[in-house]
């Protein structure tokens, strides 16, 4: 049973179209394929996977994988 963080890593790789083994833990916005267009796709994918709804500030503030983990914790997901 994958942990929540592992699930988030999968979401990141899929939304950013990165290879299955890519280490996304240290990834930041504007690195690799993570541009503005991908950013919104990523947000939608996370919202769907974890059944949460991002506030504007959550979207604007999610500048890294780590921040995404924090955001999910704040939205009540056990990370």
């Amino acid at each position, binding site marked *: 049973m994958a942990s929540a963080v592992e699930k988030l890593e999968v979401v990141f790789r899929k939304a950013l*179209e990165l290879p299955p083994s890519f280490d996304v833990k240290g990834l930041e916005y504007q690195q690799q394929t993570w*541009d*503005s*267009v991908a*950013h919104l796709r990523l*947000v939608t994918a996370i919202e769907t996977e974890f059944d949460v709804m991002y506030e*504007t500030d959550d*979207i*604007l503030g999610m*500048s890294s994988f780590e921040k995404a983990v924090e955001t999910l914790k704040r939205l009540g997901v056990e990370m």
Partner: protein
Amino acid sequence: MFDLDGHGDAIAAIDAESDRWFTYAELAAHAKDFAANVATPEKRLAFLYADNSLDMLVAYHGLLESGHAVCLLDRALSPARRSALEEIYRPSIVVEGGHTTILDGPSVEVHPDLAVLLSTSGSTGSAKLVRLSKNAVRANAEAIVETLQITNDDRTITSLPPSYSFGLSVLNSYALAGASLVFTKHGLVTGAFWSALSTHQCTSLSGVPFAYEALIKLRIDLRVPQSLRVMTQAGGRLALPTAEKFHGIMTKRGGRFYVMYGQTEATARMSCLPSEDFTRKKGSCGKAIPGGAFTVENGEVVYHGPNVMMGYASAAEDLARGDELGGTLRTGDLGVLDEEGFLTITGRIKRIVKINGTRFSLDEIEAIAKVPVVAHEDRVFLFCETENTAPILAQVKEALGVTGDAIQARTVAAIPTTPNGKPDYTTLSEWAAR
């Protein structure tokens, strides 16, 4: 070109990250110094690898001041792409991030009227450039200032790349009007961007369709900063409900929402739908800008105006060529004009698709994919005779620097062909539409 000095102490540009800023008088002085550093007896070609920074702005105006021709390219361009372009065009001057390099080697003859060169298609292999004259650049800036009523009280934030014709036209029109620019490297999906916009009380925002859709997703439509009075949309067709939403938000606060249509081949913009005509002319991209005119010939939109390019360049020798079009541009778009002269674009003739504001040639994509390619509603479809489409899709996306569902693969039992053995694009287009 824009008489920067004439705006004196008006603020020209602010860098949101460093808080560095300068007035027009200072920008003019910096540009003059820059020009002096690259002065040569003969006119040369300069490559400016541009990003949204004060250094770029100084270099750009400095190169215009110097009389050399400047080709603006995305600073994010890969080393391979850069080498390829530099090999073809042999620029004598290369500028990036505040550093200028003068290159040796045989210089290329550059036409006296040539001022600016821009790429037409994002990051594909195409080395084709659009050649813009001084008159065209100046004329389009004037027409944009007039049509959007830009004054020296306006302030915008750099939401577009300066190497993109739309982005550059914002810089040009603002320079002419003596209005101010806030430079940020952050995209509009970041807190830093909106912070900069608010802190500096920006009055105006320009964006491609994706940007406005992003604002909805960000729910910024619920809290557009109060200082923002003008929104301009170009770079493709914006979905009507989204356009209506932002038109509503702007008019409610006594502001304006403009829809515009343009091409790099016309410097930047050809038409404008004034805010007050938006509601009764929904779906139209407006009337020709001052100095321009549209006709429709065999369904194709033809634009006439001083902002039309001199022609293309695909080799160094082309830089010496003069004006080949005489102010008439066959746009490659299909459209209709109504009795008041309002234009509505209905489709494309050329095998070209716009993904997120960037234009790609379907023939170029086909050369990469090696399978037939068609577009439908700004999505590209690769038709494969195999189920295993993942590798080819990945290869094409990587080559173009595009992610997401804008490029898709379809598996078919057999590619339909015409009597002479070529792919039957008509049938493929119908299949793509399903």
